[in-house]
Every structure is written in C-alpha cells, then in structure tokens.
C-alpha cells in the first residue's frame, strides 16, 4: 500500500532525512515562537511615525505652512531643510510629519467607526436570523454595489471635506466587511452549548449577546481591524490626492504627492518623499498585522 500522505507535495519531499526533518522542525518552532524581525522592524517604524506625529508641535519644526522665500524647491539635504522645500518654500519634512497626523487619525478612527457599526449589525443579523438577517443582507449588498471611492466622492460633495467627515464617511465603508465577519462568527457561536444553556436558564437576548456571544467574537474582529487601518490610510491618501479630503493649508500625504506631480521632473522629491513615507507606513501596518494574525491563528498568513 502506498502511503498517500507522504506523497503530498505540500509536505516537502518524502525522502527528507530524519535529522534534516528534525532540524527543520526546530527552526519552525523557533520561528513560530517569536513575532520575527520583520514584525519588530515594522513596529519600530510605526512607533516612530506615531510618536513624531503626536508630538509634532514639540519638535521645534518649522510650521508646515510657513514659507521660506529664500529656498524655493530646495533639494533634499539643503541647509535648514533636510528633506527640501516645495515650490512655496514650505519645509517638506515638517509637512510630512504634520501630514502623518491626518493619515493616522483617519487610519485609527475610520475602522473603529466601521467596525463598531458593523459589529452591531452583524450581531443582530447572526443572532436573530430571519427577516432581520435578510434586510441587513440586502443593505450590505447594496452598499457594496457602489465602489467605495464613489461613495466617498458623493459624501465629499454633499458634506465637504472636514477631517471629521472624512473619518465618518470612510468609516461607513468598513461596515459591510465587519458586519459579514461578525455575522459569520455569531452564527457559529449561537449554536454552541453555552448559548443554549444560557437561554435555557432564562437569560434575556441582550444578556446572551453581550455576555456570551460578544466575548467570543470580538477577537477575530479585532484582528480584522488591523487590516482596515492600512486600507483607511490608503483611501484617505487617494481622497486627498484628488483634493477631496482635508482642505489646504492642512498638509496630507496624498495632497503632497499630488502637488509634487507637476514638478516630478525637476524636483522628484516633492512626490517621492511622501510616497516613500506613506508606503513604509502602510507596509508596516500590513506586515505587523499579518505577523500578529499568524501568531493568533497558528501559522496561516496572507488573509487580506
């Protein structure tokens, strides 16, 4: 009888020597124990960005909207302006740091809003089923039928581009996915014995939802928030690139990239510096989130 399992390509070569296999198992174990170098690198970058953005006014920087008329479009490494200046003589470093405040605020607030509302909807749909489920399902499908950016464009026409509105409207985009995940988790959960037991003991729906179901579904949902943060930053970047997020003179990464587009040939750093910073930040959020998810779920990754 051929041992089918040993032929599986995913398990590695069946002929691997025992010692080799042993060494690999140890390496695997070591790798799975810690969060890895990549995680710590990402976490360090994120800490740097967050701390610098939070304490921006205390860093003794030039104000982001202050023009230095003696140095217009200064290149990287100029005196007084490490990362150069833009065509209005504004310091790029200072603008990137102040721009981080917008990106991070949106990055943390929008997913929180979306997941908060999605959680309630998903719980209701998964717990009550029936027509509640049906109506919420239709609402979510309809929400998904319009590209997210279009919804945001619509909101920016209707309500203008204040930081609050950007956070709120972006938050609404995260409702469908959060609601779906919550609903699925709730469905599995409500069939479990402890829920049935609680119901048999005469617990009210509200009590069952808050005390039995909620603690069991909150963790997968929180892992999900980690994916939403970089997405929120990217979408805010797209919006401000189009000039529909926070309005000038407040600096934002997308806005800086867009403004630098005209000078791409002579002063590429105007676009490339905020591009690099934004890329590193989004990448770090993705990598850190993935490492944490891997750790929680035991080795599976890449679930974006």
């Amino acid at each position: 009888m051929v041992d089918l399992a040993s032929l599986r390509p995913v398990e590695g070569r069946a002929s691997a020597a025992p010692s080799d296999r042993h060494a690999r198992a140890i390496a695997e174990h070591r790798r799975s124990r810690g969060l890895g170098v990549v995680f710590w690198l990402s976490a360090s970058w994120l800490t740097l960005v967050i701390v610098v953005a939070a304490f921006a006014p205390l860093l003794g920087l030039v104000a982001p909207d202050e023009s230095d008329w003696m140095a217009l479009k200064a290149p990287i490494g100029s005196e007084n302006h490490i990362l150069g200046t833009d065509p209005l003589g504004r310091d790029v470093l200072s603008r990137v740091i102040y721009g981080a405040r917008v990106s991070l605020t949106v990055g943390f607030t929008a997913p929180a809003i979306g997941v908060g509302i999605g959680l309630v909807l998903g719980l209701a749909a998964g717990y009550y089923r029936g027509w509640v489920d049906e109506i919420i399902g239709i609402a979510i499908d309809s929400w998904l039928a319009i590209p997210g950016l279009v919804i945001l464009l619509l909101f920016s026409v209707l309500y203008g581009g204040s930081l609050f509105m950007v956070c709120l409207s972006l938050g609404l985009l995260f409702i469908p996915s959060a609601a779906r995940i919550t609903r699925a988790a709730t469905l599995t959960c409500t069939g479990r014995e402890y829920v049935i037991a609680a119901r048999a003991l005469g617990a009210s729906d509200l009590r069952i939802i808050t005390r039995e179901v909620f603690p069991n579904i909150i963790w997968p949902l929180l892992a999900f928030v980690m994916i939403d943060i970089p997405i929120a930053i990217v979408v805010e970047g797209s919006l401000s690139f189009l000039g529909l997020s926070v309005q000038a003179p407040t600096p934002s990464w997308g806005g800086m990239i867009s403004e630098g587009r005209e000078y791409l040939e002579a002063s590429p750093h105007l676009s490339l510096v905020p591009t690099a910073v934004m890329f590193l930040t989004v990448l770090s959020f993705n990598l850190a989130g993935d490492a944490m998810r891997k750790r929680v779920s035991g080795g599976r990754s890449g679930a974006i």
Partner: protein
Amino acid sequence: MRYLLGRVQRLLIVLLVVTFSTFLLVSVLPGDVAYQIGGMDASEAEIAEIREELGLNQPVVLRYLEWLTRLAQGDWGRSLLTGESVWSMIIERVPISLELMLLAQVMALAIAVPAGILSAWRPNGWADRFITSLGFACVSMPGFMTAILLIYFFSLHLGWLPATGYEPLSAGLWANLKPMILPALSLALVEWTVLMRTLRAEMITTLQENYISLARAKGMSTTRVLLAHALRPSSFSLVTILGLQVARLLGGAIILEQIYGIPGIGRLLIHAVYTRDLIVIQGCVTFFALTYVIVNFLVDLAYAWLDPRVREARAHG
C-alpha cells in the same frame, strides 16, 4: 434554476435600494437642483416655477418612480452644466474605461496565475516567500502611488511611454494602446495580489486531494500535475473574485483616469464632483451599480456552469 431566480431577485432589490438611496441623497441636498438651474440671481418666483416644472414639489417616492420609469425608457436626464444627455455622456466614455479595466485585469491575471501556482507548489519555500513579500509590497502601494512611480521611471527617465493622454482606436492599435499601458499596469500591480492569494490558498487545498497524490504516484511531471490537474478545480474562487473586483477596479480606474488624463467614465464622475453636476453624478452611480449587479449575475452563472455541484447545493441551501 431556482438558485439563479433567487439571485436575480436579490440583485434587483439591491439595484432598487442603491438607486433609491442615491436619489434620496441627491434630492435632499441643501439648495436643490432648482437653485442650480435657476442660477445665483433667480428670484423666488422663478425658483418656484422651476420647481413646479421639474415636479420637485411632489413627494420623493413619486419622483423616484417617475425617474425610474424614464430611466427604463433610456432618459437619464441632462447635465446641469452642458445640457448634454447623461446617457450619451456615459455611453461615449464606457468603452474607454472598459478597455482600461480589461487590459488591467488581463495584466493582473498574467502576473497572478503563474505566481499563484508557483507559490502554492511549495508553500513557505523560497519562491512562495518571495512572491508573498512582493504581494505585500504591492498591496501597500495604492494605484496613484504606483502611477507616480511608473510615470517617473518610464516616462520621465526612460521616455518609453507617454505620461498622459489618450488616442482613439481610429488612430491605430498601437497608438491607442501605448498611452493605456502605464494606467493599466498601475491598476494591475495592485489587483494581482488579491488574485494570487485566492488562487494560492485554493490550490494548496487542491494539492492535498487524493487524486493529485495518485497523479504524482503515476509518475506524472510536476508541471503537468499543477497545470492539468490542479489549476481548473482551484480556479472557482478566482472567478468569484474577478466579479467582486469589478467594483474595486471601477474605483481604481476613477483615480487613474484622472492622473493619466484618460477621458473615461471615472474622469466624467470626478469632473461632475468638482463642478457639482448632480444629475451626472447620479447617472454615474446608477451606472456603476448596474454594472456591478450585471457582472455579479454573470459570475453566478459562470460559477454554476463551472461547478455543477454548486447548482444543487445552493438550490437546496
């Protein structure tokens, strides 16, 4: 059959909800359409007249039904700015956006399918790690950033491709394709990751099936096992994702059309947003929703056709 009917019903309801909500949003706007048409210095009497003429005094549900009937007859309204028919504005630009999205999707698939297969062949091997890392980098790079970098290298540094512009097909196939390559690539470089991950995950599962082990036990070459046996049964999710991605692609195309100056439907929408041309905005949103619904229905069809088990399971489920 019952499964498909159920889907059609659901999609129609979705369409109604979407159009009604956009209609509601646009019509509750402060300073409604009448003020826009009448202009800044129109008197109250003139405004009232325009309102009467447009039927703006009727309840919103009635107006929606009327709008819907006209929509069904092909009357999508007229632009507040140019007076041009919204339908012809949209239809004129659709082929351009469609070309961009198709080109992007083909490029994305061309990258994603080989990458996904290679990655699933030895999960956690060097190829898989390289591809997964590359995917992370690409996903962290929104379309407009990729676009800036591509323009910087290919247009400004190397001078191979134009940075912006559009040529109609009548100017020749290459002339038409040339300015489309960078925008499509910008879109594809973001989208391929999702496709690759989907294929990779499903392929890893497929490769653990017994018939794969049997094929290998027969001495079949790895390439043949991967391409002939594992690829087709692993591509169901890929097909679904292709459908779901239409909304994402539309969203991505909007911003890229703006950057590369392609006169597609995304540019129309953004222009309408900048100029607050509500009727055009409404038309575009309706069109997007319609596209999404139709594409998803086609995906459902394809799905049922690819895998007969789905028809049975879903009809009873």
